[in-house]
């Protein structure tokens, strides 16, 4: 393989272009790394704010992992008051039985076991039918303050306390079921959770931000 002048030029040009570009990018990356992390944190915080009651801490900072099974850990975001006492938790609950696939619900639960608020963060339901679970605020608000005991965790059609909306029963049903299970989960693991929430050593590195 012999390279004459022209061919050396070809190779070198690309090399130079690559060198310059990569250097530029390296610097830009260094420059933006901080702001990006901050922006991502902000974004997450925003959604947590919607489901958590007023708090004084940074729930992201205080996030801890709660073991669900051997392999799986649940990311729990605690809300604490000024004194550092946990007032509520937020975590993501998965409803596998939506009309067209899984629905992911971010739920906030007060320490006392009432639902603080819920938000649907991911779904594939039919636009115009199932997507009421995101858009229908009244329906979402109907979950507030519900506990395991003060509500019947079924949609009205099945004899429960939660509305379905016209044309869609399955999606609400799936969400109601998921939130219900979340509450049950909380009830059984209440003590453990509290323990972990107050263990300062459990604070995590900032990895794995997104809920």
């Amino acid at each position, binding site marked *: 393989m012999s390279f004459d002048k022209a061919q050396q030029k070809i190779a070198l040009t690309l090399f130079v272009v690559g060198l310059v570009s990569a250097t530029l990018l390296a610097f830009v990356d260094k420059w933006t790394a901080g702001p990006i992390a901050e922006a991502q944190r902000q974004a997450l915080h925003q959604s947590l704010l919607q489901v958590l009651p007023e708090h004084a801490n940074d729930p992201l900072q205080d996030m801890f992992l709660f073991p669900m099974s051997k392999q799986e850990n649940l990311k729990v975001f605690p809300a604490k008051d000024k004194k550092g006492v946990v007032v509520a938790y937020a975590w993501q609950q998965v409803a596998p039985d939506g009309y067209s696939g899984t629905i992911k619900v971010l739920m906030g639960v007060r320490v006392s076991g009432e639902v603080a608020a819920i938000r649907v963060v991911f779904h*594939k339901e039919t636009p115009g039918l199932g997507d009421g679970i995101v858009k229908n605020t009244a329906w979402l608000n109907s979950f507030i303050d519900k506990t395991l005991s003060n509500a019947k965790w079924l949609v009205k059609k099945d004899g429960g306390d939660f509305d379905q909306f016209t044309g869609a029963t399955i999606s609400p049903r799936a969400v109601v079921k998921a939130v219900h299970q979340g509450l049950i989960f909380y009830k059984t693991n209440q003590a453990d959770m509290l323990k972990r929430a107050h263990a300062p050593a459990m604070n995590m590195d900032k990895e794995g931000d997104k809920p």
Partner: protein
Amino acid sequence: MTEFGIILLSAVLVNNYVLTKFLGICPFLGVSGKLETAIGMSFAVMFVMTLASTASWIIQQLILIPFDIMYLQTVFFILIIAALVQFVEMVMHKTSPVLYQGLGIFLPLITTNCAVLGVAILNVQQDYSFFASVLYGFGAAVGFGLVLVLFSGLRERLEAAPIPEVFKGSPITLITAGMMALAFMGFAGLVKV
């Protein structure tokens, strides 16, 4: 096995690159005028997209993740894809003129289209295994080819139709693409995610 089947079905029909993901629209509109061209293009795209998803998987796993330089993802992918395509084109031109006649002329066109870079990026986002990601790339390309060929058939028919002057050309082409997308909505939910 079913997992692979689902990846394929999803990429070909349900999440069709052109009609639901909006990737590769330019060649979809540009080379669908004639059936023969569309078929040639489809095969070329299948080749390049499979190649691209393979290459991107390798780069992602061997370079980007180990060195933690995710911010160079775009530059890496596009450079590798462009270079690979150009190599292949030149080699094909020399060694197999017949194949070049059929596919080669489309290759440069493909380098710079969203579907190819899109398949690379989406692919690594999905954390597939190597084989699954190759299959995903192939499936996406098959989906692209399928609608491209169907579309070219329709367009050949439109050619002879007395379409109102204002709608001749790109407007009616896009409306037809819209109708196809409508029809493809029927596949929604075939694959539960």
